[in-house]
């Protein structure tokens, strides 16, 4: 087991190196550059001043040199300074992380509850009317552009009914927790829709697969009550695969929800990334993408470990 873990951790090094090279190349080669921020002001800018600005940021150097400089700093834990604010990238990400984790965490919690219910209905009573409704809902959830759902939710609950605020994290001047949660409600529910749809389908499928296995037939045949079979044989076997899907999605905690954060003006990492892209703030973009990829890689490993822990037949070697 420790050998397995050690090997997987070692494999991450070349993987992360590969990711950083690809991401660096893609970001730097994108049309436009950080000097666009000077030009956007709409006034005449001396070409020499643009050159000086590029030299100050270090973007006049050849790409391999820039990459090696970035890598050298990154391995010692320094992701560089943002072009647009001159502040350390890690500090900027750290500021936004709580908002993103709160939003994503709330969405994941809602999604887990709803997907458990919807999946269990479909897995225990396949083909019934409740299953049909849950299945239809899941297909709708997968087919809906999330920003359309967000806009409709804002329109219905925010504008027409006036029940909930539609943007920001709190009303200006208000500090109460209730006010904050009211702001969290719409984005969290909208964001959860995608996860509900996918998790409930996975859960339903693994419940049905478990129900088709021999040991469940044996348990029924020996006279165990249906409730006991569901608890001891179906749920226990079905939760493993679902747990790994959920864990892999958890990695998104660190990249944020670009679209949902933009619609609801939620100050998370997703919006920071979009702003960074408009400004061609290379260190900031690199930092967010690298941390996001690191989260994906780590969560994949955690998912495999959970899978092994939940299913004793799986031997991790």
């Amino acid at each position: 087991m420790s050998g397995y873990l050690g090997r997987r951790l070692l494999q991450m090094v070349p993987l992360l190196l590969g990711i950083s090279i690809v991401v660096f190349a893609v970001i730097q080669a994108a049309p436009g550059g950080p000097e666009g921020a000077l030009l956007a002001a709409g006034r005449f800018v001396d070409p020499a001043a643009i050159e000086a600005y590029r030299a100050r940021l270090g973007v006049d150097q050849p790409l391999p040199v820039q990459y090696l400089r970035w890598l050298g700093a990154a391995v010692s834990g320094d992701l560089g300074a943002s072009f647009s604010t001159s502040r350390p990238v890690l500090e900027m990400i750290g500021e936004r992380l709580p908002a993103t984790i709160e939003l994503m965490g709330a969405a994941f919690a809602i999604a887990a509850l709803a997907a458990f219910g919807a999946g269990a209905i479909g897995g225990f009573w396949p083909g019934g009317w409740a299953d049909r409704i849950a299945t239809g809902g899941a297909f709708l959830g997968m087919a809906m552009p999330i920003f359309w759902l967000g806009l409709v939710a804002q329109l219905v609950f925010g504008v027409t009914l006036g029940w909930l605020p539609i943007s920001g994290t709190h009303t200006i001047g208000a500090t109460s927790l209730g006010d904050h949660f009211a702001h969290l409600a719409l984005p969290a529910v909208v964001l959860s829709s995608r996860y509900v749809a996918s998790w409930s389908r996975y859960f339903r499928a693994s419940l049905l697969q478990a129900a088709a296995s021999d040991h469940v037939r044996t348990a029924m045949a020996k006279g165990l009550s249906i409730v006991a079979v569901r608890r001891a044989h179906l749920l226990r076997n079905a939760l493993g695969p679902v747990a790994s899907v959920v864990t892999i999605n958890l990695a998104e905690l660190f990249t944020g929800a670009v679209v949902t954060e933009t619609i609801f003006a939620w100050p998370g990492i997703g919006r920071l990334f979009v702003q960074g892209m408009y400004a061609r703030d290379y260190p900031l973009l690199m930092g967010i993408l690298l941390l996001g990829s690191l989260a994906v890689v780590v969560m994949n490993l955690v998912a495999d470990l959970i899978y092994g822990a939940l299913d004793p037949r799986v031997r991790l070697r």
Partner: protein
Amino acid sequence: MRLDRSARIVVAALVTLAAVCFAAPWIAPYPPDAVDLTQLRAAPSAAHWLGTDELGRDVLSRLLFGGRASLALGVLAALLATAVGAGVGATAGYLGGGVDNLLMRLTDVALAIPTLPIAIVLGAYAGNSLPALIAAIAALSWMTTARVVRGEVLTLRETGFVAAAQGLGQSRYGTIRRHLLPNTAGVLAVSATIAVGNAILVESALSFLGLGVQPPTPTWGNMLTDAQATMATRPLLTVFPGLAILLVILGVNLCGEALRPRTRPI
């Protein structure tokens, strides 16, 4: 491949919709960018069946032309992604060894990079060019296909007919193209169908962030984005493109579902 009756109805509906959208230049009542300043945000009427938008353009015509762009983008991006994924997966699975290792590590790298953020970066390359946008979306979605095809090929490689093909002197490329890939057609069909829906969703998300196909060329994604400004006063303008996207993706996903082998009920 046999489809049940409800799946055939869905396929027929999708094909009809695609045909109507592609016939837009001939059947649309107005050009997509014809501005009528006397008819701003008009309600549905006999002249404008679905009303007009904030510049007095006919919504039905724009929906048809937008569908043309959105569907073409979805289908072409899905085909490209499937072709790349199948090529990478089949090569890796069949050749094995160092090539397999290299291609699969490359796939791991591509899979680990968060999708929407990197899509935003690639959107900057695409600018106003539909082919570039198609390539960018395909670049984000070939990986799963590659993995699945590699798995299938690994199993198929050991079968008798592949050994026979090699014994009869078929080249490696010929074996992959004539014997291995046709046998993965089932999984390819499923992943290509699902990829169409994903491509349309990604385009609409990029449009929302101002990075998709640029106005005045209509797509369902950027129509939805344009309609956002007047959502409170003219909610109907957001309803039509949203419904169009929803129905197409629903239909495409249902097709993917119907094509999936019965043994895997997800």
